[in-house]
């Protein structure tokens, strides 16, 4: 086996494997190194212990929730639901396996050498791999791409013990359901797990330090989601900080701090969903002289070049937002740049954020608050789903689509949605924004009827005071 490559990608997550495939497409000799880490494997966290299995469980949750709450109304009997978390987890694992197998196939098809083991940079143009089940290898690389991803983060005092204090990795393979649990963190990971476990009959408390759920999204989304969650019985506590945890008590006692003072919550399980941190250790960064930023990412330019010539970094290690689709696109930009092309850099202001909780949330561009701060002459068009045909037929008519526009030039500054299947509407908003469509174009396109996307059209019309159905 040749040990000399044009490109060696370290990491085969959604950033790394996409980068490897694009590089191979462009005729570069490519190798991709991936270790079977706790949260990784071919396909990275996303396919193994992140996006994909989480969505599989959320579908189980949605089905459970729907049958339980609406089965009879839909004319489906019997509606006495029993939960089998084990089966749900097994289903999610099968899906992960199928997709990671797909990556092996894609690597073969594109003649990418897949090296399983731990890779680290070992001098200029060299990657040392501790090969699993084999002898160490020294790969020569004209270009190195670091795509080592991220791991779960937690707070001091809340260290993972993988039993009583867990992260998303363990939550995706929970053998036994607790009777009550606390999810710490109201970002999209936290709200998704709160949804799953609530649907499976666990008594869930969702704790968020800031004043709304989904901080970073348009505030109205978080507020609407909190209302919806409270209605279905999730104990949502915003503006609440976790202080300490007594793990020895049975049940455990979690102390939290609110504006009113300290409170305690009894719980069987604590799920920490307070973000992730990039994996920078044991990659050989320091020896190679790769600079990092103050907030702990690898410093890169628009073409994803690090401070060292010939070394690129993509995905979660290359900065916020730590999202699979952002990483994949960085992988493409880096591969094309390595191949001597001049790719358009990734537009950071047009990356969708999506939460697959129920109702779903999706957001792209500036929030209403951010647009106002930036001094735009903001106009908001909001279309509620309460009387939306498709949402009503789905039995899921909570939420709204909100379009934020600049009145001066009609530019669509942001689109923020909460409701049935809105995750699928993010792309319409994104492509529209990428092509610099104004609200006029969103409104002028005859959206299929009845589809959820009509709500985007109506929001655009509403932003111009011309909504038809409100």
């Amino acid at each position: 086996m040749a040990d000399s490559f044009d490109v060696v990608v370290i990491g085969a997550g959604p950033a790394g494997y996409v980068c490897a495939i694009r590089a191979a497409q462009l005729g570069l000799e490519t190798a991709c190194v991936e270790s079977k880490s706790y949260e990784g494997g071919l396909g990275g966290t996303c396919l193994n212990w992140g996006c994909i299995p989480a969505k599989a469980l959320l579908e189980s949750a949605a089905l459970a929730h729907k049958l339980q709450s609406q089965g009879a109304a839909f004319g489906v009997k019997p509606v006495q639901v029993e939960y089998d978390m084990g089966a749900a987890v097994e289903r999610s694992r099968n899906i992960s396996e199928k997709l990671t197998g797909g990556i092996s196939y894609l690597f073969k098809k594109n003649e990418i050498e897949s090296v399983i083991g731990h890779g680290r940079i070992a001098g200029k143009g060299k990657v040392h791999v501790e090969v699993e089940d084999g002898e160490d290898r020294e790969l020569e690389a004209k270009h190195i791409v670091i795509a080592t991803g991220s791991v779960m983060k937690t707070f001091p005092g809340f260290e993972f013990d993988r039993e009583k204090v867990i992260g998303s990795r363990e939550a995706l393979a929970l053998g036994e359901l607790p009777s009550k649990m606390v999810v710490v963190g109201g970002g999209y990971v936290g709200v998704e797990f709160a949804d799953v476990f609530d649907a499976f009959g666990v008594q869930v408390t969702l704790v968020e330090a800031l004043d709304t759920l989904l901080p970073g999204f348009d505030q109205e989304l978080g507020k609407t989601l909190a209302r919806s969650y409270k209605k279905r019985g999730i104990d949502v506590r915003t503006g609440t900080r976790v202080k300490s945890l007594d793990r020895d008590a049975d049940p455990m006692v979690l102390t939290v701090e609110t504006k009113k003072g300290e409170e305690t919550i009894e719980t069987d399980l604590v799920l920490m969903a307070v973000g992730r941190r990039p994996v920078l250790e044991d990659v050989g960064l320091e020896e190679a002289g790769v600079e990092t930023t103050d907030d702990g990412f690898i410093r890169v330019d628009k073409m994803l070049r690090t401070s060292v010539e010939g070394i690129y970094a993509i995905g979660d290690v290359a900065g916020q937002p730590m999202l699979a689709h952002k990483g994949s696109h960085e992988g493409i930009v880096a591969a094309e740049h390595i191949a001597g092309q001049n790719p358009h850099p990734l537009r950071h202001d047009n990356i969708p954020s999506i939460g697959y909780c129920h109702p779903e949330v999706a957001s792209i561009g500036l929030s209403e608050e951010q647009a106002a701060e930036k001094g735009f002459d903001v106009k908001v068009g909001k279309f509620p789903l309460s009387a939306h045909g498709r949402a009503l037929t789905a039995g899921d008519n909570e939420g709204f689509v909100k379009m934020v526009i600049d009145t001066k030039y009609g530019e669509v500054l942001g689109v923020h949605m909460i409701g049935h299947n809105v995750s699928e509407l993010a792309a319409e908003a994104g492509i529209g924004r990428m092509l610099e469509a104004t609200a006029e174009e969103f409104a002028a396109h005859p959206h299929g009827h009845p589809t959820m996307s009509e709500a985007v059209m109506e929001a655009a019309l509403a932003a111009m005071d011309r909504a038809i159905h409100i």
Partner: protein
Amino acid sequence: MATKVVMAQLSPTMEEGRLVEWKISEGDVVQQGDVVAEIETDKANMDVEALGSGVLRKIVVQEGETVPVGALIGVIAGEDEDIETLLREAEAEAGAAGDEGEAVADEKADNEGTAAEEEPGEEVSREPARAGASAGEASADAAADDGGGRRDGGRLRASPVARRMAEEEGLDLSRIEGSGPGGRIVKADVEGALESGAAVSGGRAAAGSTRLADETIQLSQMRKAIARRLTQSLGPVPHFFLTTEIDMGRALELRAELNEQIGGGEAGAPKVGVNDLLLKAAAEALVRHPEINASWGEGEIRRHGRVDLGIAVALDDGLITPVLRDADRKGLVRIASEATELIDRARRRKLDPDEYQGATFSISNLGMFPIEEFTAIINPPEAAILAVGRTAEKPVVVDGEVVVRRRMRVTMSCDHRVIDGATGARFLETFKGMLENPLAMLA
């Protein structure tokens, strides 16, 4: 990946270019977009930008050398990248092109031997390209209404936000370079143009006013006959000439007053010159006489919706006519600052090709010389050119008395296929009136 640096074609007529200066040396690191060299085209000196990043590995064409368009002039590549194959290929190509080039050169020499010694050959060769460009522009404006503009016969690609911004800010999209995929004009490009002040078609005067539409007038039988007969009698462009004398007293007073008010000529402030008054007056008169702001086309006359004034600028070894765009939509001070800047760059040969092509009317001013009056040759496809002599004190009769006045004589050359004597005369009457009652011009 190696990136070739080639002699780019920077104007439609450019066949070869001379390498004036390398801005960097072999071994220097280059980022994409960096200026690496300066080249001289048939019209101007222009910068060559790197199309890729890397190290300037090889300078193929030395300073002072002239090579045909498309020839390899340098190679940018990785530090240790093998560029030998690329150099060999380029050498082979250059060899082949060289043979061809010689053949072309020989042919040219022959032509030169037989053709007249003046420059009309060059002018004529420019004509088709220019006619093509104005045809493209014409359809651009026609199509703009339904949201799809045209440029060079293709679509003018611009995002809806870019279009809306350009509309609101009075910018002309066809003058903006697109940076999006496939050269699509996006918001950032319009923002850039707004910042740099380029491509402005409006200004204060534009607010509320609408641009005249381009108009094509089908030829009547009489007009066809006039065209045919006059062409037969007097070369490709049948010229006739109209002369008038203008009292410049009030215009010069206004100019002095204006300069005092705006601090003209002091640091940064534009100074309004006689030439600027002439540009303004011509623009205003052209709006009132659109039949002068026109071109002779194949079987039709084109009246232009925009007033783009060519300003003849003398160079040591020739002349060039930078174009002041949308002169009718600009105030006097703005005309002064833009014209000054254009003329300055014209003299330094720093004009982009689109800055000296496609005027709708031209002015040639020899007023700085002791020239009383002269006739200028029309620059096709324009239909007229105004030749301006010096302003001098002369005795004139006013109300039966002989008094001394500052007078200037202008002669307009007209293309008789487009303009008749009385039409031209009415234009000159308006032009003269503007300068003699300059406040009307500013209204």
